[in-house]
């Protein structure tokens, strides 16, 4: 072997001597060229510019950016907020006028509950206000652990995880599981925080018509065909259905039993956002799963905020540990944000106590909801949108004037009319340009357990008067 190699070497040297000069030069240039290619900077499109320094300076000089923000007209409908003085509880002082509150999502009337306040106060005396850190770095308080345990127990799931901001809950939870390349089937009426979560996940989003299970099944079938074409890809493509318990934007309930059937038929996971239904639906306030008698383990993830029925701040997700635990390292709003102030967690715990002690409160709420729904029927020019047992109804114009802007103005004058007569209502606000499917403008009517029969009658007749006066 050794002699053989030597022979090759000798032959090479000989060939080198015998080769003509032009050949050597050519090879030399080629070698240099290769070296240049190897060591030269990577080719960048942007840098391929034939401009001289002077021309560049001119370009820089000439460039005029748009203003940071476009100007806002002085009479923009949402520039000047209504100012609330004092607590936004049953009686609320809006712009200096005391009204009955039909606008805050204080379904169970826990917002100024004395027990809740006392618990918050005790916690404040022990822990101070802020947590000064994210959960990972000394921002986990014993109260947080207790609240998580209580929520899991309340919902009868294995685990719960709390977030410090209701909006961030589902918006962080979705991208923790659904990544680029995964597929999410979502209802058209999904609220804005779901939309933002979907956007952050960078998955394929397929919208199905609101509460239309046939449309969803059509999409699922389409996907099944697609998967058969490319089974290798299908094996790693996660699928999710994202729905809301009670839809914030339409005040109706998702058909959960059908969704669960579809889930097992097409092997899709269900994420359920229950901000409007937690502490509202079901015998014990466990939400839409209890309402339909669906096994809660069939839902992969339930998320809700603690800002409506619970009347505190923050949100939570619950479900099986296999699913929920993942968020402790992957939920962006959980890992990178300061934790919930302990006094707000303590308030939430006390709210859960009240809910557990007196499940009757949910029946009362449902009765009130039905009452309000009935009382609002037949108002000329306005239609009630939503199921009778949901606590946050919408009043929409029967006939739109044709432009959203003037519709909004009309609704605003109805609200102002009611505010003058001590009934606080509000418009459902949306970012017109950001919403995927912009709901029609509407007046929100929120039901709470504290509203008496007279309050409801008063509000209904007030709205009726306003409608008659303004919509003529």
């Amino acid at each position, binding site marked *: 072997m050794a002699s053989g190699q030597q022979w090759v070497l000798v032959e090479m040297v000989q060939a080198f001597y015998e080769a003509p000069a032009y050949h050597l030069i050519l090879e030399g240039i080629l070698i240099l060229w290769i070296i240049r290619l190897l060591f030269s900077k990577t080719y960048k499109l*942007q840098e391929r*510019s034939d401009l001289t320094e002077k021309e560049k300076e001119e370009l*820089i000089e000439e*460039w005029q*950016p748009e203003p940071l*923000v*476009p*100007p*806002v007209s002085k009479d*923009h409908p949402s*520039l000047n*907020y209504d100012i*609330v*003085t004092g*607590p*936004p*509880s049953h009686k*609320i002082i809006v712009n200096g006028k005391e009204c009955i509150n039909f*606008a805050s*999502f*204080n379904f169970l009337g826990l*917002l100024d*509950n004395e027990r809740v306040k006392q618990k*918050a*106060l005790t916690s*404040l*005396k*022990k*822990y*101070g*206000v*802020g*947590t*000064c*850190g994210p959960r990972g*770095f*000394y921002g*986990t*308080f014993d109260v947080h652990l207790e609240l998580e345990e209580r929520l899991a127990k309340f919902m009868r799931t294995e685990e719960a995880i709390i977030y*410090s*901001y209701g909006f*961030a809950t589902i918006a962080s939870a979705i991208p923790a599981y659904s990544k680029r390349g995964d597929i999410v089937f979502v209802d058209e009426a999904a609220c*804005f*925080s779901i939309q933002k979560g979907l956007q952050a996940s960078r998955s394929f989003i397929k919208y199905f018509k609101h509460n239309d299970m046939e449309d969803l099944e059509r999409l699922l079938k389409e996907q099944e065909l697609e998967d058969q074409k490319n089974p290798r890809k299908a094996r790693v493509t*996660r*699928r999710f259905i994202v729905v809301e318990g009670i839809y914030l934007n339409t005040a109706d309930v998702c058909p959960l039993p059908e969704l669960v059937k579809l889930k097992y038929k097409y092997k899709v996971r269900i994420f359920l956002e229950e901000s409007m239904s937690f502490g509202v639906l079901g015998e014990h306030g466990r939400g839409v799963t209890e309402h339909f008698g669906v096994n809660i383990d069939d839902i*992969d993830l339930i998320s809700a905020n603690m800002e409506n029925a619970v*009347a505190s701040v923050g949100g939570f997700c619950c479900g099986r540990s*296999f*699913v929920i635990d*993942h968020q402790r390292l992957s939920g*962006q*709003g959980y890992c*990178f944000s*300061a934790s919930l*102030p302990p006094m*707000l967690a303590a308030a939430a715990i006390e709210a859960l106590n009240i809910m557990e002690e007196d499940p009757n409160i949910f029946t009362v709420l449902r009765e009130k909801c039905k009452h309000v729904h009935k009382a609002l029927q037949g108002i000329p020019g306005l239609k009630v949108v939503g199921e009778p047992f949901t606590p946050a109804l919408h009043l929409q114009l029967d006939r739109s004037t044709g432009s959203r802007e003037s519709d909004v103005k009309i609704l605003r004058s109805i609200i102002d009319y009611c505010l003058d007569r001590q009934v606080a209502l509000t*418009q459902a606000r949306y*970012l017109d340009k950001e919403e995927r499917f912009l709901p029609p403008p509407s007046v*929100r009517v929120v039901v709470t357990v504290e509203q008496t029969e007279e309050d409801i009658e008063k509000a209904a007749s007030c709205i009726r008067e306003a409608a008659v006066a303004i919509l003529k």
Partner: protein
Amino acid sequence: MTESAANKAVNGEVCHRATNGVKPGRNGFVKNHYHYKQQKNCYAEEKVYHTACNGGVYSRPFIESFEETPMFVAVLTYMGYGILTIFGYLRDFLRDWKIEKCHIAREREQQKDFVPLYQDFENFYTRNLYMRIRDNWNRPICSVPGAKMDLVERISYDYNWTFDYTGRVVKDVINMGSYNYLGFAENTGPCANAAAQVTMNYGVGIGSTRQEIGNLDKHEELEKLVAAFLGVESAMAFGMGFATNSMNIPALAGKGCLILSDELNHASLVLGARLSGSTIRVFKHNNMQSLEKLLRDAIVNGQPRTHRPWKKILILVEGIYSMEGSIVRLPEVIALKKKYKAYLYLDEAHSIGALGPSGRGVVDYFGLDPRDVDVMMGTFTKSFGAAGGYIGGKKELIDYLRTHSHSAVYATSMSPPVVEQIITSMKCIMGEDGTTMGRERVQQLAENTVYFRRRLQEMGFIIYGNSDSPVVPMMLYMPAKIGAFGREMLKRNIGVVVVGFPATPIIESRARFCVSAAHTKEMLDTALSMISEVGDLLQLKYSRHRILPSLDRPFDETTYEENED
């Protein structure tokens, strides 16, 4: 007046540098720690302490150091990860064959045939590396997160897979981990009392959004105060610091806009930039040449493919970077932003309250004009001991946000007691409460910072960042030392934060101390001597440069007598 003079000087210098490239005196940012190429080790000797005094640009010395990773440490660190990975694979193999008991929560039987929720490799790191040292994070506390705190004792019998609470409390742990810069995490005193009063009057919830019916008089009061504090025309407050970034950047930039973001920006800024749909380009950490190059290229070349000019360019920077302890080179950023007509978004999450002679953040620290920063963002979580975030700026900006911020339209507004805590603590810092307590705290923090940083450096630790930053990262490098340092310190009753990959580059694991105005000299000395002890035990004193930079600070010499160890 001095402002404009300084700016002229900056402009001059920036232009100069653009053509001149690297200047010897300016290696402070040219060679930051991201150039940890080992072959440069031999030159490290004279490049450890970069003092950049830029004439008119900086009103004070700007000392920022990122000592090179020693070569042998880097090699050992990589080896450490290598060994951990090999063992990880081995144990995964054993778990697969059911030889080792597996503690991981499993998918339900009914859903076994679903597409797996997690890819197998996704959790490899969690399972095999993080799990071994998990006890260093999420330690539950059961007191105020003040200078000292009480920890709930927990114990694990299965190597951190589950924790049992013993029911005992570890009392009086010195807290070097909470972002309690000005010591406003308190359960007594004016702030707590005011918050308690508001809790009784208002309750804790709101149940609506700002635009609907959740706009309390308290919120309006807070926003006026924040605007006055920052020295801007108008301000708006939001319920969560993270969301302030992620929900407002999309309102400021969109398609056809360019966002230039520092590579070490916080996850919330990154998420906000992504959600905005703008093009994002990343510049090297605090590297002005990198930023300027991106700015020039962007304006000259316009948008990719179409070459249309960009609608606007938004620069995202932070005041203090929470993992590096570095301070943004704000005077230079402002000069660049003015030269190239870009907009500047400054996130003062860690710097507001913690920097500057009157605690007004990094703008105050450099003596600049807040009006030169287009968007002043910050949080209330840290220095104010509350929760939430704000944005301050011109009236047009805030008016626009009031109408278009995702937060204002869709998110529940801030809890009244939290608002009150901010109002009281901010008034205290401003001196509007009639005491000098706020100012004293700001000063105390500055003194504590300088003292703590200097002592650590003297001991021979590698400390990153700016000498005035209360965030003090101390390098540990090796994965095993992350766990060891956290545990040894807790044994000595000191709570520290340790961080490793993915929060830091893989070999640059570190411990992070947050200095607070509430720390007394005794506490700092106790902490320092314990750190030194553990440092010797774990051989953490990597620094080969015990020479100290000259510290010509107004305070410092007189405040503490030095005792060299």
